[in-house]
C-alpha cells in the first residue's frame, strides 16, 4: 500500500484509489490485517469463544461427572501407532488408577493391550445447548471407558471438559464485566462533560478518591457486605458491577482529556473555518477518534477483568464451586501436591495466559492500526 503523503502526478493506480477513498474503518481493518500478531490473537480468541459457547458439545463429559476409576490421573495422549501396528483412528489405552498402599497416592496403571478407539460425534451425556435445545452428541469420545485428554482431578473429574466449561464462563464474565465498565464510564463521563461545573468537579474528586484506594482491599470490604442469601452468581455479578464502577474513572478521565486536547487540533479549527457546526464536528471528527480509543480500551481491559476474577476466586471473593471458571480451576491447582504429583492441573493456567496475551496483542494491534501516526519508519 502506498505510504502516507500525497501521491504525485496523475494516473493513480486502482489500489491507490481504493486507499484514498476508503472509509476510516476500512483503513483500520486493512492495517490490522497486516499486523500478524494481532491476527493470531484474534484467531485464538475466536477459537476460545467457540470452545466456550459449544462447551457442552466439545467436552466429552459434563463439568461435574466423576470417573471413579481414574482419580488424580495423568493425561492420556492419543496415539496413532504402537508395537501392534499403525491405525488411522487415534486411540488411547485403557487405564485406571490404584492407590499405593504406603503413600496412599493414586498411581495410574496403563493396560497397553487394550486399545480404545476414539470416535467422533458420539452419543454421550445429555445436555442442553444454550440451555434450551436438548442434545447428547459430543465432538469425540470412546465407546468403552473414558478418555481424559488432560487428565483428571482428585474427584475424578475430567480436566479437559471442565476447562471447556470454564473457558465459556470466564470469557462471558469478562465480556460482561468490560461492557458494564465501559458503559458506566461513558455515561458518567458524559454526565460530567455535559453538565460541567461543580458536578464535573465533584465527580472528578470522587474518581480520584476511588482510584487511589487499592483494589483488592476495596473488594474485600465490599464483598463482606453482601447479604447472605445471595447465590454465588449474584455476588459475582455485583462484584463485576463494582469493578466497573471502580474502573470508569480512568477511562472517563482519559476521554475527557482526549476531547479537550482534540478541541485544539488543527483539523477542528479547519472544520470550523469551513463552517461546520459543533455537532457536526463532534460527530464526524471527534467521535470516530474516540470510538477507536474505546474499542482499544475495551480489549485491553479484558485481561484485567479475567485476572481479577482469578485473583478474587483465589481469595474466596469471586466465584465458588459448583460454578466452574478459570479462577476456580486454578485454585484447585494452587498447592504443592499438584506441583509435585499432578502438574496437569495447571493446564488451565495456559489458557489464561494465552487468552490474556491474545487480548493484549490484539489490543496493541488495534491501537497501532487506529493510530494514523504509527505508519512511520517501520
Amino acid at each position, binding site marked *: 500500500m502506498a505510504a502516507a503523503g500525497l501521491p504525485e502526478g496523475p494516473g493513480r493506480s486502482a489500489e491507490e484509489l481504493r486507499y484514498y477513498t476508503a472509509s476510516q474503518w476500512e483503513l483500520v481493518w486493512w492495517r490490522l490485517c497486516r499486523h500478524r500478531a494481532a491476527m493470531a490473537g484474534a484467531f485464538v480468541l475466536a477459537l476460545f469463544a467457540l470452545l466456550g459457547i459449544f462447551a457442552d458439545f466439545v467436552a466429552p463429559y459434563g463439568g461435574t461427572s466423576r470417573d*471413579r476409576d481414574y482419580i488424580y490421573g495423568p493425561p492420556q495422549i492419543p496415539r496413532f501407532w504402537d508395537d501392534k501396528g499403525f491405525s488411522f483412528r487415534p486411540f488411547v489405552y485403557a487405564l485406571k488408577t490404584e492407590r*499405593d498402599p504406603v*503413600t496412599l497416592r493414586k498411581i495410574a496403571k496403563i493396560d497397553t493391550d487394550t486399545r480404545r478407539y476414539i470416535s467422533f460425534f458420539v452419543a454421550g451425556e445429555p445436555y442442553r445447548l444454550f440451555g434450551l435445545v436438548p442434545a447428547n452428541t459430543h465432538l469425540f469420545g470412546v465407546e468403552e471407558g473414558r478418555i481424559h485428554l488432560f487428565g483428571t482431578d*482428585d474427584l475424578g473429574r475430567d480436566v479437559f471438559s471442565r476447562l471447556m466449561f470454564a473457558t465459556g464462563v470466564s470469557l462471558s464474565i469478562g465480556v460482561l464485566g468490560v461492557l458494564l465498565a465501559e458503559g458506566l464510564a461513558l455515561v458518567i463521563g458524559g454526565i460530567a462533560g455535559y453538565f460541567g461545573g461543580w458536578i464535573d468537579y465533584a465527580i472528578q474528586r470522587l474518581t480520584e478518591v476511588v482510584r487511589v484506594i487499592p483494589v483488592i482491599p476495596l473488594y474485600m470490604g465490599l464483598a463482606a457486605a453482601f447479604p447472605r442469601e445471595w*447465590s454465588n452468581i449474584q455476588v459475582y455479578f455485583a462484584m463485576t458491577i463494582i469493578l466497573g464502577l471502580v474502573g470508569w474513572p480512568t477511562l472517563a478521565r482519559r476521554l475527557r482529556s482526549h476531547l479537550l486536547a482534540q478541541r485544539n487540533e488543527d483539523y477542528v479549527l479547519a472544520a470550523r473555518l469551513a463552517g461546520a457546526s459543533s455537532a457536526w464536528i463532534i460527530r464526524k471528527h471527534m467521535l470516530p477518534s474516540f470510538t477507536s480509543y474505546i474499542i482499544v480500551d475495551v480489549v485491553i481491559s479484558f485481561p484485567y477483568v479475567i485476572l481479577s476474577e482469578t485473583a478474587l476466586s483465589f481469595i474466596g471473593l469471586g466465584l*465458588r464451586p459448583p460454578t466452574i471458571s478459570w479462577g476456580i480451576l486454578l485454585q484447585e491447582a494452587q498447592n504443592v501436591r499438584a506441583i*509435585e504429583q499432578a502438574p496437569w492441573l495447571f493446564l488451565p493456567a495456559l489458557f489464561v495466559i494465552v487468552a490474556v496475551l491474545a487480548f493484549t496483542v490484539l489490543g496493541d494491534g488495534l491501537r497501532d492500526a487506529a493510530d494514523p501516526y504509527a505508519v512511520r519508519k517501520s
Partner: protein
Amino acid sequence: MTETSRYLRVLAGAGAVALTFQVAPIAVATAAECPAVTVADDQGIKGAFPQQFEKAELEKAAGCELRFKENPAIAELNRRIAGNPETLPPVAERLPEEPLVVAPYEAIGNYGGTLVGLSKATEAGTSDLLSIRHVNLFRYSDDLKTVVPNVAKSWSWNDDYTELTVKLRKGHKWSDGQPFTAEDIKFWYEDLILNPEIYPETPSRWLFAGKPMQVEVVDPQTVKMIFPVPTPGIVNRFAVDFGQPFQPKHFYKQFHIKYNPKANELAKERGFKNWAELVNNYYGGSDWKDVPSPLLKGTDTRVAPTLESHILVEETATGRRLVANPYFHMVDTAGNQLPYINEIEEQYVADKEVQNLKLTNGEVTYKMQAIFIEDYPLLKENESKGGYTVDLAPGLGENVFYAFNTTHKDPVLRKIFNDVRFHEAMSLAINRDEIKELVYLGQAEPMQATPAEPLTVTFVTDDQLNYMIDYDPDRANALLDEMGLRDSDGDGVRERPDGKPLVIRVVYSNQGAPVKLHELIRDYWSAVGVRADLKEVTSDEYRASANNNDLDLTVWKNDGTSGPTISQDTSRLVPPFGDYFNPGTGFEWAAWKRSGGKEGIEPPEDVKKLYDLATRFIQVPLGSEESNKIGREIVGIHVKNLWKIGTVGNIRGPVYHRNDLKNFKPFTAKSFDYYWAYSFRPVQWYLSK
C-alpha cells in the same frame, strides 16, 4: 591367754576387720543410682500408674536412691526468663520433694536443642503446641483410658462423688521459684473465675447444675473441691482440659483488689483503666494460654509464672519463643530434671502450602494439628528427602454430620424435617464407600454419627454404628415417595407439599468439613430428587446464622463427643446437640427447655427423655455399668431419630515428626478432645544431636 588364743584373737580381729571392709562397700553400694527404667525396657519395675512413678515408689521398687541432675544450660536459660532471680538454687531445691518420675519411652534423653513448631497465628491453630508444654492436675495415659497423676500426687472421692480431695506435691514451685500450694487453686476459682470483674458471667462449664463449687484449703498440699451435685466426670476434665485450675496467687496478689486495696491506683499508674484490666494484662481474660502476652502487647517484659514445662520469653507478630522451666516438677528415672528440650520455637504460617513446603523441607520438628489426609501422599513421598516421618493416627470426633433443622422457621420444611423417614432416606442416599475413597483416601470407615465417640467408650453397639449406612438410593426414593414428595413436573426435583421445589441450602464453612464432601453429597441427594445448593461462608457467619435458626441444615465435625468430654459436659447429648461454635439442631427445643416452656417449640417425647438421661449420665462415673447402660440408651435415641446423619468415622490423619525427635511414640489418637499430644508425654521428648 595362751599364744594360740592371742593369735586366734588377732586372726579373728583381722578377719572381722577384713569382713567389715568386704561388707562395707556392699552396704554403701545399696544406696545405688536408680536404673534407667524405660517403657521399652522396664527391668521388671512397675508402679501404680503406667509409665511413671512417685519418687518413693521407684526407690523402694528398685532399691535405689534417686539423684537429681540438671540441664547444663539451665542457668543460661533461666537468665532469659524475666523476673526470675539471677542465681539458680541447686536442682534438688528447685524440684518438689516428691517430683513425678517419668519413664521415657525408649531411652534416657540428652539435654539441648530447639523444637520448631507451626501455628496459624497468635491464637489460631495453636493448641497443638500448647499441648506440648501443658500440665494439669491429672493426665490420661497413652491408652486413653487410665487417668494418672501429674501436678497432683493423688486424689480421692467421697462416696457420692460430691467431694474430691486432691493432694499436691510438697516443695512444688512456680517457674519463678515461689511455692505452689493449694492456695493457688483456691485463688484461681474464687478470685478469677468467680470474680464478676474478670468474668462478668461465670463460664457455665465451671458451674455445676448452675451453682459454683467450694474450694477448701485443708493444708498447703491438700485441697478439697466440694460440688453441689455428684460430679465424677470432673477428674476426666482435669485430665484433658486446656484450662489449668491454678494460677500464681503470689504474683496476682499485687494486682487484685481483694488483696491490694491500692490495686486501682496501681493500674492507672501502669496505664490501665482498672485493676481487672491490669490482671488481664497477664491473665488474658481466659484459661487459654495462647492469649496475647504482655510481651506482645509491649506492656511488660515478664509474664505470669507457670507450672508448664516451658515458659514464654519472646513473643512477636511472627512467632513465640519459650525456654525450659527451671522449676519443672518432673524428672526421668535416672534423676534428670525434665524437660530435655531447651527451647520451643513457634512460627506463624497461615498458608497451607507454605506449611506443606516447610514440612516437606524438614524445617519443622513436630506437627499434628491442621495437617490433612489429602496432603499425606505428598508428605509421605518426601520423607527421606526431608528427614522426617509421617504416621497415620485415628482422629476422634471427625465424623462429619449433616443435621436438618428440626425447628425450621418455614413450617413446610419443619414438617418434612421432623419426619424420620426423610432422615432415613437422606442417609441411605449417601454413598459412604465413595466418600471414604475420594475424600479420605480410604482411611476411614462408613459410620453413623453418635453422640459418643465409639473409640472412647464401650457402650456404643455395632448396630447403632451401622444404622442406615447402606448405599440404597432405591429405598431412599421409596421412602420419599411414601412421604408424598413427588416430582410431578419431571424436572428431576421433587416438590414440597406446597408445590415449590424441594431445595436444601447447604451453607458451610471449610473449617467444619472438607469442601469435596459437600459436592459429593449434593450429587447423591440430587440423584434422589432433592436439590442441594452449596454456599461457602466464613466460620463466623456460619455460626451466627446457625445459632440464629436461619439455616436449613448444619454440617460440621462431630466433635466434643469423646468419653471424658461427655462425662462432664452434656451439650452434645441434648438440644441443640452442640454449642455456639458447633451448633446442631433443635434450637427451638432448647429455647423451650431454657425458658421453662414459655418460648420455643415443645420437643417430642424422645427429646424430653434425653434431658433426664443426660443429667443422670454425668452423675455416675464413666465406664461404670450404670454409665454404660444410660449411655447406650442415649445413643439409641439419637440414632433412631437420625438428628445428625453421619458419613464416615475412625478417620485416620497424619502426625508428623522429624527424625531427630526421639522418645516419640506414634500416637494412638489424634484429637483435640484428649488435648493433642498431652497424653503422649512430650515432656520426655529429646532431640538427638
